[in-house]
């Protein structure tokens, strides 16, 4: 093997080892929460994830204040993680064993995505592959450089210098910092982009343990919840957006954990302040992951009101206080340090893509002022039609045999990038069955939260026809998989059907994204 290839292989292995750190930390924090706070494993996992997010944000703010604080803080946190992991390993009680699988799935998913992206793919430039550009063009048409933004943000924080705009015409305040903070926490050694890519992929695959926790919270058996989590890992949506690491899946994972607590069946009534604080931290972390979380958070909030799921004053106060404690400093950063930080809101809510000096309220007033009620209604109708568009035409085009196999595979992946039902894979069935889940008492609260999240998105995204996966929160897609898992618990045959469908999803995911 030439020296250059050997070096790149070693680099890749170092990256994978650092990606493992994410899963180990989640496991360590979760097992500690289960053992010390006596929490159910799914709630312990949410608590562990909240602790992980808090650690990432502490790392971010500490380094934004003093870059030199980064190394000692990182060492202290990672030593604590190692100690907690060893403690859990030596204890290995039932909760520790139950928590091991969802955390291992996150790591396994990351290894699959990294392998699908890079193994045997060669390099753009001999000796110096541009790993992030490769990830941006591996499966679809070349995507923009959004996957680089958290890396560059981390780098300027580390360098102690903040050009504004700091990436193209983007301000540092335009994109929330959770992925940046967690990357700063887990990156040991130099600033190689492959290390960033590996850690960022591992952060996106946290959707697997989050799906598991959400499923367990609404009464799905452990094995079925794990099967649903595997199915999620092989969703076209997840493979695509775990490889192209704009931080959308990490936000969906944290929101799923917050929703797991809020809509748990039965609700965890003991220690409401603690449970509320964990829910609030997960919700705050979701907002710090990606701003599009707001669409789903709004829908879930309305669902909570409609179902009377407010969970008591102490719970609510703790949740709001924790969410604000986590998200408030970022709001201050946007407002005071690198203002205005409202570019994405103007883009999504007012359809204004070019940068201008108008404030959000003024932009909204002018955009909506120029819109007739009829045009607004037609736009919303188009959003709904886009959201539920049949995947049949894309599948028929794939099966038609016109064009080379490679061309058809790329066309199918492109279609999955732009269409919610296709991006769900087999879980598209759950999208079309959503009205049935609303009728079923066991799934009604989560189905309502999912449906209203999608409705809020279709109503509020300004530009007609933009209910495409990467323009919204990816939480509803995870929730649909969980609803399918809940349905699979009704009968042995339903469980077998879910397992078979997930098997199909896994094989088609491996072939479409890994081998093609």
């Amino acid at each position, binding site marked *: 093997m030439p020296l250059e290839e050997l070096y790149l292989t070693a680099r890749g292995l170092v990256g994978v080892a650092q990606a493992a750190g994410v899963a180990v930390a989640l496991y360590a924090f979760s097992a500690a929460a289960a053992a010390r706070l006596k929490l159910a494993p799914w709630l312990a996992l949410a608590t562990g994830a909240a602790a992980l997010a808090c650690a990432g944000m502490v790392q971010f703010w500490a380094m934004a204040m*003093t870059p030199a604080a980064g190394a000692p803080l990182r060492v202290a946190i990672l030593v604590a993680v190692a100690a907690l992991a060893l403690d859990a390993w030596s204890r290995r009680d039932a909760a520790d064993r139950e928590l091991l699988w969802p955390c291992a799935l996150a790591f396994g998913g990351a290894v699959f995505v990294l392998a699908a992206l890079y193994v045997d793919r060669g390099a753009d430039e001999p000796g110096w592959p541009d790993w992030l550009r490769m990830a941006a063009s591996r499966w679809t048409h070349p995507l923009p450089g959004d996957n*680089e933004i958290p890396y560059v943000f981390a780098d*300027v924080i580390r360098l*102690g*210098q903040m*050009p*504004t705009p700091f990436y193209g015409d983007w301000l540092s305040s335009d994109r929330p910092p959770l992925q940046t903070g967690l990357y700063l926490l887990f990156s040991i050694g130099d600033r190689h982009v492959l290390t960033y890519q590996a850690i960022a992929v591992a952060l996106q695959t946290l959707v697997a343990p989050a799906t598991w926790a959400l499923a367990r919270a609404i009464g799905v058996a452990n094995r079925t919840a794990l099967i649903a989590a595997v199915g999620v890992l092989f969703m076209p949506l997840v493979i695509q957006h775990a490889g192209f690491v704009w931080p959308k899946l990490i936000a969906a994972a944290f929101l799923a954990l917050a929703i797991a607590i809020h809509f748990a069946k039965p609700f965890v009534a003991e220690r409401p302040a603690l449970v509320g604080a964990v829910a609030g931290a997960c919700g705050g972390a979701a907002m710090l992951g990606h701003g599009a979380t707001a669409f789903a958070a709004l829908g879930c909030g309305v669902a909570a009101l409609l179902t009377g799921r407010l969970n008591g004053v102490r719970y609510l106060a703790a949740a709001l206080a924790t969410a604000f404690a986590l998200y408030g400093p970022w709001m201050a950063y946007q407002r005071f*340090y690198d203002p205005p930080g409202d570019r994405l809101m103007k883009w999504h809510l007012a359809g204004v893509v070019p940068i201008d000096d108008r404030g959000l309220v003024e932009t909204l007033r002018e955009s909506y002022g120029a819109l007739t009620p009829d045009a607004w209604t037609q736009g919303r109708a188009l959003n709904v039609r886009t959201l539920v568009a049949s995947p049949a035409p894309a599948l028929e085009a794939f099966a038609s045999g016109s064009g080379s196999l490679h061309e058809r595979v790329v066309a199918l992946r492109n279609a999955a990038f732009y269409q919610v039902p296709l991006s769900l894979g087999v879980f598209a069935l759950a999208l079309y069955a959503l009205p049935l889940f609303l009728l079923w008492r066991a799934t009604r609260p989560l189905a309502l939260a999912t449906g209203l999240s999608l409705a809020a998105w279709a109503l509020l995204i300004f530009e007609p026809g933009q209910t495409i996966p990467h323009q919204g929160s990816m939480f509803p897609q995870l929730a649909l998989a969980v609803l399918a898992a809940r349905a699979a618990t009704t009968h042995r045959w339903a469980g077998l059907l879910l397992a078979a469908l997930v098997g199909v999803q896994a094989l088609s995911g491996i072939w479409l994204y890994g081998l093609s």
Partner: protein
Amino acid sequence: MACRRALILALALAGCDGVLGRAPTPAAAARYDMRVRAVVVEPDALGAAIAMAAPVGHGFERSAGPGGSVAWRSSARGRISWQGVAPAGADAVAVPVLAGPRARGVTVTLRAGGRVVRMQPRGADAWLYWRASLPHGGPQTVEIIAVDTSAHRDAWLAVATPRVTGDTR
């Protein structure tokens, strides 16, 4: 605006030497360069040159830098340490760097006011002004350490007389 300035000043006075202790640098003065993974200064924003003593080390030869300034260039393996004093008021130093297409084995390190920052330059067809912020306060000793550990013909490195940015009157 006043609130923003007060907040940044308060953080700076509290000893915050990271991004929060300084106002963001406008794009006209500096930008992040993904190729070298460093912040670089736009040539129009450069200030005065820093008077540098003769470098100590081996393997680097004297050559011409941008604008006729002094530069030191490696052709094979080498290491030099080059020192000077940045005047009071300078908020950053800009080190002109030029490197061959092969990055491995070449590094430039800057020490100033107890801070150490490192850059791994990569091939560029023009001088790049690597920006490193200086601690607040009076004159600062700056030391540039240029290292080339590779004998590969494409791995070479040149550094030229650094300049300051900011108000140094």
